[in-house]
């Protein structure tokens, strides 16, 4: 594929203009200002201008910098991994399940560990759905079990076993100090230990989740913001078919 080099754009192609803001943990003086400028240079910004510098008190100062990014990226060389499937609508999903599985697909979902942000998982699973997209509960070929907030990984695994879940949906919203990575790894390890990992389709979602990250953590797919029930459902049914076709 032909190279497609791009640089940030301010008002002229390849001018590289970017805006930057940050705090330095020092009181504001000329050296701090110059330090801010030099940091921008280290980031590869030519002619950086510290357009705002303000003392925040208690030995902190705030900077806004504009500069010209020297880096460029070749978009043609970028491969973005994303879950591969064709998005069906609710009826399509139902039909495919009926046809291929010949039974209801069991989906169990939860916000695990300390995370109590259920709005995301509810948006995917509950009847009401999100932005006019109905949730999995409304799919008559699915049995959708939403365990809600702050579910221990152990409890989730136990329920998944009991319910013979085909799909596990995990939501992780809190990412501070990378707590989501710990939680997600823990769940994956538990499933592995229970010998369940290969028997379920394991999906994670949340605003800071990418498919890439999910794969790295040993999940089958990851979904970020603006996901709707049909995306997840489509992926799940396609994945099931892939695994169960010989």
């Amino acid at each position, binding site marked *: 594929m032909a190279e497609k080099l791009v640089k940030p754009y301010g008002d002229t192609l390849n001018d590289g203009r970017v805006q930057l803001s940050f*705090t330095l943990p020092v009181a504001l003086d000329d050296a701090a200002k110059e330090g801010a400028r030099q940091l921008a240079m280290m980031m590869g910004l030519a002619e950086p201008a510290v357009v705002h510098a*303000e003392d925040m008190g208690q030995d902190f100062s705030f900077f806004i910098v504009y500069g010209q990014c020297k880096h460029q990226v070749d978009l043609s060389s970028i491969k973005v991994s994303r879950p591969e499937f064709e998005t069906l609508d609710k009826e399509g999903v139902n039909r495919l399940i009926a046809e291929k599985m010949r039974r209801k697909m069991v989906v169990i979902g939860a916000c695990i*560990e300390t995370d*109590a942000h259920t*709005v995301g998982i509810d948006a995917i699973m509950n009847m009401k759905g999100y932005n006019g997209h109905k949730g999995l509960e409304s799919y008559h070929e699915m049995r959708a079990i939403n365990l*809600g907030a*702050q579910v221990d990984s152990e409890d989730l695994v136990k329920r998944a076993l009991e319910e013979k879940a085909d799909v596990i949906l995990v939501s992780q919203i809190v990412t*501070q100090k990378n*707590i989501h990575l710990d939680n997600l790894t823990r769940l994956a390890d538990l499933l592995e230990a229970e010998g369940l990992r290969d028997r379920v389709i394991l999906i994670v979602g949340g605003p800071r989740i990418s498919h890439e990250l999910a794969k790295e953590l040993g999940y089958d797919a990851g979904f970020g913001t603006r996901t709707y029930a049909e995306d997840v459902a489509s992926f799940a049914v396609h994945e099931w078919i892939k695994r169960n076709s010989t």
Partner: protein
Amino acid sequence: MTRLHLDQAQIDRARDSARRIARSVFEQMKPFTTTTVERATLRLLGIDGVDENMVPLPNRLVSHLQEQDLLQHGAAAIVVGAMIERGCTAQQVAEAVAAGKLTMRRHKGEEAIRAASEAEARKMCEHIARQRARRDSEIKSVGESRRPWLYLIVATGNIHEDVIQARAAAEQGADIIAVIRSTGQSLLDYVPYGATTEGFGGTYATQENFRLMRAALDEAGARVGRYIRLTNYCSGLCMPEIAAIGAMERLDMMLNDSMYGIIFRDINMKRTFIDQFFSRMVNAYAGIIINTGEDNYLTTADACEAAHTVLASQLINEQFAYLSGLKPEQMGLGHAFEINPEMENGFLWEIAHAQLVRQVFPEASLKYMPPTKHMTGNIFRGHIQDALFNVVSTLTQQDIHLLGMMTEAIHTPFIQDRFLAVQNAKYVFNTMRDLHAEVEFRRGGQIERRAQSVLSETELILADIERMGLPQAISKGMFAEISRKADGGKGLDGVIAKSGDYFNPFPNLMLAGGQ
């Protein structure tokens, strides 16, 4: 002046419903105590510290009392009995029990024990009263800002880092510092101990952390010439204990709701109703302003459709608060600017809601929350949503103004987020200083009609709730579209039926002696 024409008789009817709703719950809960109420009582009697496994001594002692089938009599009487017998302090009793050197039992001489208990309790009440007086005198000497007060959170997870951030925030203009709690603390059935450095999305609420932050803020307040109020979360499975340590360490505000734990943390209702009563009583006595959590409803329900549930809940919270001895000005009833920014005329409805609440609770210290749900990664747009929130707050004269962060959808605040948020609010408040006195809303206009219709819906829903009872209303998902059953949720095992001779020295002292 901004004033809407509302039907006062309708407001009165809604408030009467709420009064009966709260009273009915109160009566039903009277026969019960909880493990955390008892632990709080022990803390108020001076028990503190942890065992070798970091289990707090109040927990060790209360568990022991449960094992000995004694808790239903009230922990205070049993412990004071042992104190008298052994001629030692409550702390020594607890340590002995924890060390396995003492097994608790009932002591004779109920009268004497009660009197001794009261004497012990009075000591703590005096300490708390001194803290209250200290607050008053600090405010008098260093001063305080005019309202709306700027409320900022710190949430690094590390109390020492929090202190740094809080000091900077004070310098930047904060009037109130809230130390956000670590994710998950509300479901711990104990209060962690000591200075802590490892929280997620917040810092553990511990007595030592309270103390460290209080000292830092007193110092910062003196420097900036403004008393800086300290806030924490009197919420979750240890609500009464947090109230106790907060009162001791001179916190000034507490997130403290009669239903939040039930709805958002799936804590059992009975547990919550009992705990909230005790915790509020302590808060009332300590001169602490409580903050209720109705704003949270709008993070799951739609801010327009559910506007009346916010008002209904505030009225209920108000009545529960009265039952615990809180004064109107101690009621930081919560509401929020959460209408979808894409909605045509959404700003008008925000004004209507905020002004309605202002007029229904003219004396309350209203807590107004910034946009959160509809904040996105677009920080520039978010900064403007926050600015319009600031506009509504000054226009409708709110009291406790939580600062919106442009990075709300991204991370807990960075120091610069807070800095810019303060600038935002200060600019808006100053440039519109007297706008509230200059603007009138058209009689019979859209804003007024919106407020009237929310008020009518509130009256209706409260009548409904009164009919079915609050537990039933909650189980029907009337608040925040979340349904909780009466016997579901965490912490029900901590609800204990009081025996006939149950005794606790604090209610008598505190309900009488609030400011």
